[in-house]
């Protein structure tokens, strides 16, 4: 009788009921959210961070998400040595230019972005790859929603003299800015990438890129956003790499008010 009742109940509830088989632990934070986190569900609050000790739950708890598409994969790993803690995220793509779709796996924070904030993450690239210039580490989108959005800023890697260097791409005016005063990004060791964004819909915004705490690029009087809502992507996205299969490790992702 009990199974029959259960069966009828399921039939009554619809054809594709959702069974929640796993939940994020309530204290999912290491992902520390600001005290005002609950005040505005649409706002990206500060400070926020994740070192992936709770897996991907810090993103989930902050209304973010992670994804992997087109032969990409995402895993939480403990080797090689994380920057801090026990775990880090491993973003793996297969950047084979024979495929039309870009292999990509990233984690996303979204909402109304802070007026001024530092967006940072620690990266570990285990081996050298040659990049055609579109090996993206940070990506900012603006718009009304994810469906109605457009790119704003990229922080990517390009191969220069056989070494990898950061650069910034401004999608609003289609300009590309190289870094200066910093060395190429290291291979086989952690390095910190941080972008300070002073948002402005007019031409009085400001962007500063830091590599391991050193200013690598500073732009002023720029239009940074044309909408309040936005997304920040951290992970691995590549069009063409040699070798094609690439894993980058990411740890200690932060959004903070001060450096």
């Amino acid at each position, binding site marked *: 009788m009990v199974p029959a009742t259960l069966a009828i109940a399921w039939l009554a509830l619809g054809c594709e009921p959702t069974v929640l088989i796993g939940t994020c632990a309530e204290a999912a934070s290491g992902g520390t959210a600001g005290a005002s986190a609950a005040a505005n569900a649409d706002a990206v609050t500060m400070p926020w961070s994740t070192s992936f000790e709770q897996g991907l739950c810090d993103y989930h708890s902050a209304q973010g998400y992670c994804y992997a598409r087109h032969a990409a*994969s995402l895993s939480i790993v403990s080797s090689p040595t994380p920057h801090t803690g026990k775990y880090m995220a491993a973003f793996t793509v297969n950047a084979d230019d024979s495929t039309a779709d870009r292999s990509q796996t990233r984690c996303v924070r979204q909402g109304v972005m802070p007026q001024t904030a530092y967006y940072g993450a620690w990266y570990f690239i285990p081996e050298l790859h040659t990049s055609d210039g579109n090996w993206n580490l940070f990506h900012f989108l603006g718009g009304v929603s994810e469906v109605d959005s457009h790119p704003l800023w990229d922080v990517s890697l390009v191969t220069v003299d056989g070494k990898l260097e950061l650069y910034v791409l401004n999608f609003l005016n289609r300009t590309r800015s190289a870094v200066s005063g910093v060395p190429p990004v290291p291979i086989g060791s952690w390095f910190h990438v941080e972008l300070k964004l002073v948002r402005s819909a007019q031409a009085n915004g400001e962007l500063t890129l830091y590599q391991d705490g050193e200013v690598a690029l500073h732009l002023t009087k720029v239009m940074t956003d044309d909408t309040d809502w936005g997304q920040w992507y951290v992970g691995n996205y590549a069009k063409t790499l040699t070798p094609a299969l690439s894993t980058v490790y990411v740890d200690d992702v932060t959004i903070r008010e001060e450096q």
Partner: protein
Amino acid sequence: MSHCTAAGTAAGIAWLLFSAPSAAQSAVPMQLAWQAPANCPQETQVKQKLHDLLGASAVREAPSRLRAEGQIEPIGERFRLTLNIHYDLVNATRVVQASSCEDLSGVAAVTLALLFRAEQNSGAPLTARDLGGAATGAGASADNRSGSDAGNEATRAGNEATRAQHAENASAAAKTASESESESEKPADDEQEPSSEASAGNPSRFRFAFRAPEFRTDIGVLPEPSYGIGLAAGLRQEAWRVLLSGTLWLAQEYESGPFVGYGAHFGRVSGELSGCHGFRFGGFELAPCLLLALDAVSARGTGVGITSTNPRTAFLSAGAGIQGLWSVNRSLAVILGVNARVATSRPRFVSESVGEISQVGPVALGVVLGCEWVL
């Protein structure tokens, strides 16, 4: 018992059977065509004797798949009975010679009565060996009885009864024949109150059947192919069977696509109600089935940062299949079946932070291999 003694016994039984033919002709539960010289018992008399042997209730309640054609020919001063017996596609021929055609008519009636009881008392189909005692098969016939005499045939009939485990033994059959004969002298009583022997030979039409073990595999319910073991119990009535089965499936660990390390631990039990109708081809039976299944699936999300209460869900599916049963003996058959089921509900198993881990497929395809025991 020597052949000579057996011959004498059979001849005696046959003489008793036909020395006082019944006044009333009754229907028999099988098709019988009969040809004999004018001075021998005719079809009406043979059927009457068969009816007397089986009892009225057996005739009314238990249709048979047996068919037979009997022919008696004079061979010099003797007579020869050629009895062609058919059971679905299994055929056999028995040839018996005797000095009396009455004896041969009796042998035919006893033989058919014993086969009828063997058929009714066992859930398994009759085999070529049962029909003819020699290598015969579907679509084939054997004529290797030439030269048998009535006594040998009676001995063979006794052996048949032994093979039919639930049927009476040969002596009981002979006794039945004798008693029926004595009662046939009182046809009115026979019509209204079948003998106790006849009642005993008309068993319950339902038989208990169970299957153990049943090995199952299927795809379409859990994300990976599933393997399970179970058992079933139910009832058989002639070619119909209804079974209720339960299966415990091996647990599965599954990682969802791009999120390495994230997935679920699945557990599953299922129950199935099936109704099948068998079509026999000798010792083999093909049985189309309709089935209704209830799956109960538990799933525990896994991955760094994920906790789970191991929730359960259940869903119904309906479908059809076909089973092949090979009868090892009267009590045991080996089963191999395939089936397809359509789910009435397709639960989605979702884990926070990574989304959908798996979803029950719209169609499940399964295979079952097992043993069926019929009591």
